[in-house]
């Protein structure tokens, strides 16, 4: 991750000179922290396809909800196959609810769950991981033991117990519940990243100058693990999808929101697997679930090279270097 700092020094020509204004520094920072990673990531077809898929679901959750009417009973004849009646393009289920309506209207709560769960688990993991990796000693031992305990308790049964007992209805709350111990794995790997950073000379310099731990963590340690944290933010989105659809499938979250898991449960236990005629009832929610998680996996894989220093070094040009000859 040292490349990041050295590239800052190289491109310092205009900004780091005498006339460096606040705006220049700011622009430099944005360029280094945001634009370059985006440019590197966009080079990869996986990031492109992944972003397009995620954007599609975002559109479905915002614009789609306005265009498609909400699901109700009897929107069309019962068990209409897909692509036959254009008032219900994807067919209907056993009570005549349009599959398209159910699928589209399940998206917004899903996106809320994903956002809440991913933010919660990534934030906890980053705090625990950086503090325990940097501080060492007793703090580290206590935090590592806590992390190990959280990692060992099997997540889904715990979530199922809590969901059955508290019956949460707010999508954001459900998202947080699902990641209640998912932060532990990430915290552990962030800790091992920080372990290799804590003795770098610039961190040591800050320490000798007497900077408070909080400042060292935020200014010196965090920027280096940020790409890794972002990738795992996307990865935990996939876990929230798996967990929430599973809980809805088991019927533990009730029918408070439309969800692909509820559709799946209805189809599987309503006999859709026994007949080719109604197989759309089962396959549409399956496509919806696999599609969104494939989008997130592709995105995470595509951005992973941001984290691999050997690949990064080749791409680490900033705006000033745009005139440099194109390199493959």
């Amino acid at each position, binding site marked *: 991750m040292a490349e990041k700092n050295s590239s800052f020094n190289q491109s310092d020509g205009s900004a780091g000179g005498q006339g460096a204004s606040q705006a220049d520094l700011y622009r430099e920072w944005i360029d280094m922290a945001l634009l370059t990673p985006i440019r590197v990531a966009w080079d990869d077809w996986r990031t492109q396809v992944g972003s397009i898929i995620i954007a599609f679901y975002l559109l479905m959750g915002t614009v789609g909800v306005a265009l498609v009417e909400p699901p109700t009973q009897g929107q069309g004849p019962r068990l209409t196959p897909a692509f036959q009646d254009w008032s219900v393009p994807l067919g209907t289920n056993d009570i005549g609810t349009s599959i398209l309506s159910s699928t589209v209207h399940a998206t917004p709560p899903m996106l809320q769950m994903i956002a809440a769960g991913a933010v919660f688990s990534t934030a906890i993991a980053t705090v625990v991981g950086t503090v325990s990796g940097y*501080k060492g*000693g007793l703090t580290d031992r206590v935090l590592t033991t806590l992390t190990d*305990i959280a990692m060992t308790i099997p997540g889904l049964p*715990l979530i199922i117990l809590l969901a059955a007992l508290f019956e949460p209805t707010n999508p954001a709350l459900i998202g947080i519940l699902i990641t209640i111990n998912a932060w532990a794995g990430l915290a552990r790997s962030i800790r091992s990243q920080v372990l290799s950073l804590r003795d770098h000379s610039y961190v040591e310099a800050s320490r000798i100058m007497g900077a408070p731990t909080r400042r060292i963590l935020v200014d010196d340690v965090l920027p280096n693990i940020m790409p890794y944290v972002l990738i795992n933010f996307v990865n935990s989105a996939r876990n929230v999808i798996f967990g929430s659809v*599973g809980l809805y499938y088991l019927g533990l979250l009730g029918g408070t929101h439309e969800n692909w898991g509820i559709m799946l449960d209805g189809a599987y236990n309503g006999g859709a697997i026994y007949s080719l005629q109604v197989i759309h009832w089962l396959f549409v929610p399956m496509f919806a679930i696999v599609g969104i*998680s*494939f989008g997130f996996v592709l995105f995470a894989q595509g951005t992973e090279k941001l984290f691999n220093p*050997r690949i990064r070094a080749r791409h680490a040009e900033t705006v000033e270097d745009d005139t440099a000859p194109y390199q493959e």
Partner: protein
Amino acid sequence: MYVAKRVAQALVTFVSVVTITFALVRAIPGGPADFIRAQVMQSGSADEVSMSEINALVESYTNVDPSTPLHVQYFNYLTSVLQGDLGQSVWYSRPVADIIVDAAPWTIFLLSISILLTFGIGIVLGAVMAYLEGTRFDSSSTIASMFLNSVPYYIAAIFLVYVVSIQLGMLPQSGRFTSGLEPGLNVEFIASVLRHAILPVVSLVVTGFGGVAITMRGNAVQEIGEDYIRVAHLRGVPGKRIATRYVGRNAVLPMYTNFMIAVGFMFGGSVILEEIFAYEGLGLYLLQAIEARDYPLMMGTFLIISLAVLVCILIADLTYSKIDPRISDQGSREAY
């Protein structure tokens, strides 16, 4: 020293799991005590049954006597759990321990096979992909791995049930073995058990190995580029030895955390998987206990699933420290 530390840590984890279950038993309004009380009331004999008798009844089911102070309750619960007494199932009217002894071997059988296959296939495939980096085989299996990695195991399970057992009629859809068969060590029974295990195992393995393969590929590609590998080639170490001893070992070691997470994930997943296949293991009993509000069974199965994960991780931990000696002298770093 290291072994003792790990075992002690596993014990601490187990006690904290027991504490969590105890807290859940206690803290939830309408918990088991109220539930049993309500059942006694319903049976119409409420007038004759005194409060102390109800308390005794609650204690015989859950090992928690509501009339004693909290710390005494906690201590009693902890000691009875450590003695293997998990209370009495309200729904099945059997000791929870009996149900678990019946169910646990099946879940452990399914999941240990799944975990071994997932990591075996994933590691071998990832290593091959890394050695063939950039070829068509590499890019196509990377895409396939990514796709399979984004399919939830329960979707794969439903899909397999639909294709393999309903449409093709090749494998049984549900259960642990063909009903009517007498359990025993004969060929027919074992064959039936294996046939029933194929679909659950395949749905976990197919959706799991992709992630392992991608991680392994990344690690191995990085390892192959290291200087010491080039030196090993230059000094004439046979390629096969480099692949297994140098690259393989160093690429597998960092996946230890993945393994820990996968064990917890798969054991947790048994709840949904066993529901889909109506496979009477721990997960199915846990789900039934939740649906029937059978608190003693709920807590018991939860404890045992946690215990299984703990033991798996402890075994992995101890073998890991044998392979990688660096792990056991951690914690000697300076504290800031």
